[in-house]
């Protein structure tokens, strides 16, 4: 499949930008590219595009054409994970570099009130990622109303799910509070389950006096849900999971200067499955419902964040009574921006697969340090003291008997974005 992508021969800057923006559409037709050939292509495109970005903008000074509205951006991050026990993103007990994030995107307004955006993405996360280049998002956004008081519209295409505080840009290191997001809510092995959907979305943003109100919603399907559950949760088995639908809505209210924000996310999804796994569920359906509360309080040098989630899972298989369970996740986090380029992080994160029993609880105490060199470069390092194994990936840890309940993790990351 890697033959599908051909790097543009860049004859001039404007030509390069047009081709870049058309790439999203081309990828849709192409399905997917195999790694590493595809990822090398994307990397080459990234390296070619980064220095061109400024030059292109410079040349378009004074231009009034629709093309002058175009912007393109990208990010490239390389991480390192070391654990004393258990594996996270590859063979981390020896030290793993199997943690790479690469993306390149473009957006433009061909006519007033209309936006077209697309992003290509490559992600390596141990055994948990498909290691392909995929269309991360690609949608058309039409605004019915757009002024200083409100903005409302519809989106159609592959859209990032409105889910909590971090989902939409979770692959961009600089937008995360830490190298690894709190795993109880933003599981990295299961990233693709609640991540994006081929969907229709409606939104309304209002700015009444002193406040900012936002409503985002999507409804659609996602093949990535079934593929991810099969790859991460059922490695080594034949498993076939079909997404029936996924729907999400997020409402948030905060001050217009952004000093505080409260959000509520509600989501539902359903899957049909059949599997060869030796469990009592051979063929049936799974439904999940999410209720997530998010809160943030911000000062000049401090950011305090908390999120609490309940995930209800209902599953039914042939000749077996239906099973209902609810997991509970929450974290408390504070970031201290003690110098303009520096920030420190302290977080406590807890996950309980079944909120009615204290069993199998996983707790993670994290301490981190981040340095932002400029608008492009950043580096971060963090330490995790973990008690529990329930958010570890079975795909990375094929031998469950070897798992240790008390373990430590060190994560480091260098990231460039433009």
């Amino acid at each position: 499949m890697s033959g599908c992508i051909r790097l543009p021969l860049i004859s001039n800057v404007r030509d390069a930008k047009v081709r870049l923006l058309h790439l999203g559409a081309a990828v849709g037709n192409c399905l997917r590219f195999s790694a590493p050939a595809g990822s090398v292509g994307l990397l080459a495109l990234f390296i070619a595009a980064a220095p061109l970005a400024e030059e292109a903008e410079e040349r378009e000074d004074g231009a009034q054409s629709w093309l002058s509205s175009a912007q393109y951006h990208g990010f490239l991050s390389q991480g390192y994970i070391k654990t004393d026990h258990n594996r996270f993103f590859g063979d981390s007990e020896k030290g793993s570099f199997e943690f790479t994030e690469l993306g390149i995107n473009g957006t433009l307004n061909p006519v007033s009130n209309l936006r077209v955006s697309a992003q290509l993405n490559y992600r390596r996360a141990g055994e948990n990622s498909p290691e392909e280049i995929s269309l991360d998002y690609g949608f058309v956004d039409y605004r019915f109303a757009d002024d200083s008081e409100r903005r409302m519209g519809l989106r159609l295409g592959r859209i990032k799910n409105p889910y909590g505080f971090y989902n939409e840009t979770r692959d961009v290191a600089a937008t995360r509070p830490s190298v690894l997001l709190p795993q109880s809510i933003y599981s990295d092995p299961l990233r693709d389950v609640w991540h994006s959907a081929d969907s229709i979305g409606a939104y309304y943003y209002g700015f009444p006096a002193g406040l900012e109100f936002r409503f985002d919603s999507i409804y659609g399907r996602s093949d990535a849900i079934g593929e991810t559950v099969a790859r991460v949760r059922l490695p080594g088995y034949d498993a076939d999971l079909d997404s029936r639908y996924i729907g999400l809505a997020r409402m948030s209210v905060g001050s217009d200067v952004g000093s505080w924000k409260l959000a509520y996310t509600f989501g539902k999804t359903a899957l049909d499955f059949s599997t060869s796994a030796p469990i009592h569920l051979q063929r049936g359906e799974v439904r999940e419902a999410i209720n997530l509360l998010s809160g943030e309080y911000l000062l000049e040098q401090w950011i305090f964040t908390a999120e609490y989630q309940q995930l209800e899972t209902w599953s039914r298989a042939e000749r077996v009574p239906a099973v209902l369970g609810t997991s509970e996740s929450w974290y408390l986090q504070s970031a201290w921006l003690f110098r303009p380029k520096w920030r420190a992080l302290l977080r406590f994160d807890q996950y309980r697969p079944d909120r009615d029993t204290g069993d199998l609880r996983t707790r993670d105490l994290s301490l981190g340090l981040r340095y932002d060199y400029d608008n492009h470069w950043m580096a971060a390092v963090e330490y995790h003291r973990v008690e529990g194994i329930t958010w570890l990936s079975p795909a990375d840890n094929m031998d469950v008997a070897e798992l240790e309940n008390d373990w430590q993790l060190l994560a480091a990351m260098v990231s460039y974005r433009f």
Partner: protein
Amino acid sequence: MLRLACHLLLALLLFLAGPGRAEEERYVFVVVNRDSVDALDQKALRAIFSMRLQNWEDGSKVRVFVLPDNDATHRQFVREILRMYPHQLRRSWDRAIYSGMGEAPEVVSSEEEMTRRLLNNPGAIGYLSEDPRDERLYTVAINQ
């Protein structure tokens, strides 16, 4: 090794934490390439620099220029004029551009470049630490 790394991290943190330097007194002027805007209120400025306002009242496109995040004039502009925090604006721009839902302002490397880009682009808005001398640029009065 992990224990050592943890201790090093803590030591570094304690070393780096300390009182910030006091900044000398400076001024910031909001500047536009346009003669029909005399005054903007703080709410409108926040909407413009948060990239929420796409067009001026006459329908022409707003083009926003900013200095780098760590630039002293930028920090002062965000704190004193917008009454927001630089890290907060950066986060909202990053979230917009990497989710496909919006745009970010164009970053210029110096005040000289800011002046040049403002001059070259009708409908452009930015800020400078000195009142611009070029008559094609206008300093905007800010209604609190």
